[in-house]
């Protein structure tokens, strides 16, 4: 085994040498070939890294990463440090080894905070060999993966664009300067590089194209001499491709449709009313006008004149205006302190769509006090840390206008609040923790009492009934009006499940008899009594 390992080292060493003199393409090919070679070698002689990766992810990854410390030490190249047979024995039964007095085992145990590693007797020797193969094979695979990946330059270019160009340029649409998407189709890359670096010099040198470009705007473009050729390459790559269209938003629209309330909107109703009034006045005017003509009182009276001077129509119009005014007044009074659609800016960009939607975490996982208490609690930061101890960066689909870096910073805000050191994966000792000051959205007036436990646990109402499709909201907003009429509507319509509660069976039977119904609504059980909510 050892000889085999050494030969591999030699091969890779030789390979490294030759790589230096080759172009990136041939490097890619050679790494790929070498990887394939190792792969086949591994299959025959040792472990299968693909199976190893699977096993590593399901067995080891809870405590170990390849390239960094987690609960246990980093495992990349662990086979260089320790003998394979020892490792197999250790992985199978580390507590047993420590007890048996193996010196190395005790040393490892003490080096790692005296946390014993879980024994894995279910793994076979071959399984462990596969895993160990994976801990070696990773760097080769990583190189291959990076080389074949889309193009990291585009992402870098985007950053450069944002920091340098975005003040005056947009990708699409003119700002101070022209739009830059696919600018490479219009001009040559070499010329663009010169232009970006120092456009004034280019104009001064008498370049024709530069003169035309300079006439685009009276404001000269800032020269960017600090950008390196690599920067410019990346920038041009980004300009050629542009932003990959965000996919996140599309799903929510259809869901929102379902939650929209039925009935004709206010504006159509108003239009119909005004239209009816106009029609009515026209008819009246026409009728009176004809009468006037028939009576031969004043022959040259037009319909329009009757419309304006008819006393009845004037009266009608005033009545109508007063009613309309009253209607507006009423509408205005009714929306005081109704916060439907309230969407404050929160201290951390916390997306319910990512947590409850994509990752399907139950609402009550975080809002755990909803089942026993009046308030559906804001989770304490340690609940966040249950997952974010290991999830320190955002890897999901991007949403809003945030980049991955922006969202990583949002997770960092949580770490700043609780004092978590994400590099060493532990809490900073003596750190003064700060509360995260979330902005409250759903805020019932103090004169109304509402109890979450009664609705969530007793009635079994889904959170979405009142809070709307939260699992599609990146920014949380108030979905329901939370008015009294809204409460009562639901109490009148909701039927109570009487089958599960034997304790109140007598009362329930009497109630159904009294109302002559099979099922009792919340309202019939006293859900409309004033003092239930106002006391």
């Amino acid at each position: 085994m050892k000889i085999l390992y050494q030969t591999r080292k030699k091969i890779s060493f030789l390979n490294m040498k030759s790589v230096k003199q080759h172009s990136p393409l041939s490097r890619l090919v050679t790494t790929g070939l070498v990887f394939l070679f190792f792969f086949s070698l591994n299959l025959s002689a040792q472990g299968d890294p693909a199976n190893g990766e699977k096993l590593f992810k399901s067995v080891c990854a809870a405590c170990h990463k390849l390239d960094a410390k987690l609960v246990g030490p980093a495992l990349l190249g662990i086979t260089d440090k320790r003998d394979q047979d020892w490792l197999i024995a250790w992985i199978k039964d580390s507590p047993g080894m420590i007890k048996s007095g193996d010196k190395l085992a005790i040393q490892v145990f003490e080096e790692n905070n005296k946390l014993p590693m879980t024994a894995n007797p279910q793994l076979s020797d071959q399984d462990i060999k596969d895993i160990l193969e994976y801990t070696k094979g990773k760097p080769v695979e990583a190189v291959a993966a990076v080389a074949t990946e889309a193009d990291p330059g585009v992402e870098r270019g985007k950053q450069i664009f944002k920091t340098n160009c975005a003040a005056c340029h947009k990708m699409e649409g003119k700002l101070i300067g022209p739009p830059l998407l696919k600018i490479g189709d219009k001009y040559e890359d070499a010329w663009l590089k010169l232009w970006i670096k120092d456009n004034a010099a280019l104009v001064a040198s008498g370049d024709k194209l530069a003169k035309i470009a300079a006439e685009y705007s009276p404001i000269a473009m800032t020269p960017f001499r600090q950008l390196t050729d690599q920067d410019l390459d990346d920038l041009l790559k980004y300009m050629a491709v542009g932003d990959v269209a965000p996919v996140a938003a599309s799903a929510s629209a259809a869901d929102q449709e379902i939650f929209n309330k039925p009935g004709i909107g206010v504006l159509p109703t108003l239009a119909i009313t005004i239209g009816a009034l106009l029609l009515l006045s026209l008819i009246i005017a026409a009728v009176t006008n004809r009468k006037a003509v028939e009576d031969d009182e004043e022959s040259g009276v037009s319909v329009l004149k009757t419309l304006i001077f008819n006393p009845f129509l004037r009266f009608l119009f005033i009545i109508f205006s007063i009613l309309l005014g009253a209607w507006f007044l009423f509408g205005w009074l009714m929306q005081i302190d109704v916060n439907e659609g309230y969407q404050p800016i929160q201290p951390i960009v916390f997306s319910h769509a990512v947590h409850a939607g994509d990752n399907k975490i139950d609402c009550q996982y975080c809002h755990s006090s909803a089942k026993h208490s009046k308030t559906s609690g804001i989770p304490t930061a340690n609940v966040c840390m249950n997952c974010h101890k290991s999830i320190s960066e955002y890897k999901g689909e991007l949403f809003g206008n945030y980049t991955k870096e922006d969202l990583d910073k949002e997770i960092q805000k949580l770490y700043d609040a609780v004092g978590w050191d994400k590099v060493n994966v532990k809490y900073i000792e003596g750190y003064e923790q700060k509360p995260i000051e979330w902005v409250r959205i759903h805020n019932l007036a103090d004169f109304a009492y509402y109890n979450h436990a009664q609705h969530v646990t007793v009635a079994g109402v889904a959170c979405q009934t009142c809070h709307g499709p939260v699992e599609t909201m990146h920014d949380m907003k108030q979905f329901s009006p939370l008015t009294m009429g809204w409460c009562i509507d639901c109490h009148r319509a909701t039927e109570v499940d009487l089958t599960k509660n034997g304790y109140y069976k007598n009362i329930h039977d009497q109630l159904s008899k009294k109302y002559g119904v099979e099922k009792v609504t919340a309202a019939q059980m006293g859900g409309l009594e004033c003092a239930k909510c106002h006391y």
Partner: protein
Amino acid sequence: MKNILKITIALAFLFTLSSCWLDKTKPNYQYMPDMYKSVGYDTYSVNPNFGDGRTSQPPVEGTISRGKVPYDYPNTQEGYDAALLNLKNPLEVNEANLENGKAMYTIYCISCHGASGAGDGELVKRDKFLGVPNYKDRPITEGSIYHVIMHGRNLMGSHSGQLTAKERWQVTMYVQQLRNELLK
């Protein structure tokens, strides 16, 4: 006559304008807020009477709040070993306990441990959390399950704040049931 007309139209126009609540990031206005806003401190409101400015305070050290059950096994390896051997479930194994255990499991554990307890929850499938063990691969007892819910283990955090003592035992009972099924 014409004046009245003009005034009504102007008023109606004003009302339409003022009824627009444009900036949705700020709350809508209130009329006489005295009755809207609580005189007492709300659960999460800022409170100048405490040093850290919060209304919700942790229990005073050395006290046990009503309904809470103290737990004596420390959050160490020794505590885990002791709980594994000695700690027993005080609840009777019955339908009702298992049913609520399942309900709680479905909320608090399923994301990682999966519906069957095989360590294949949604977060594992989406590569957010890796290495969640299958219950059958671990020599766990009711004592150790309860201990881990209470204090967490390795990267799993404590879930004692989200579950009451009774619920923790119900979840423990349900996890044992799942494990027995997996071992079959």
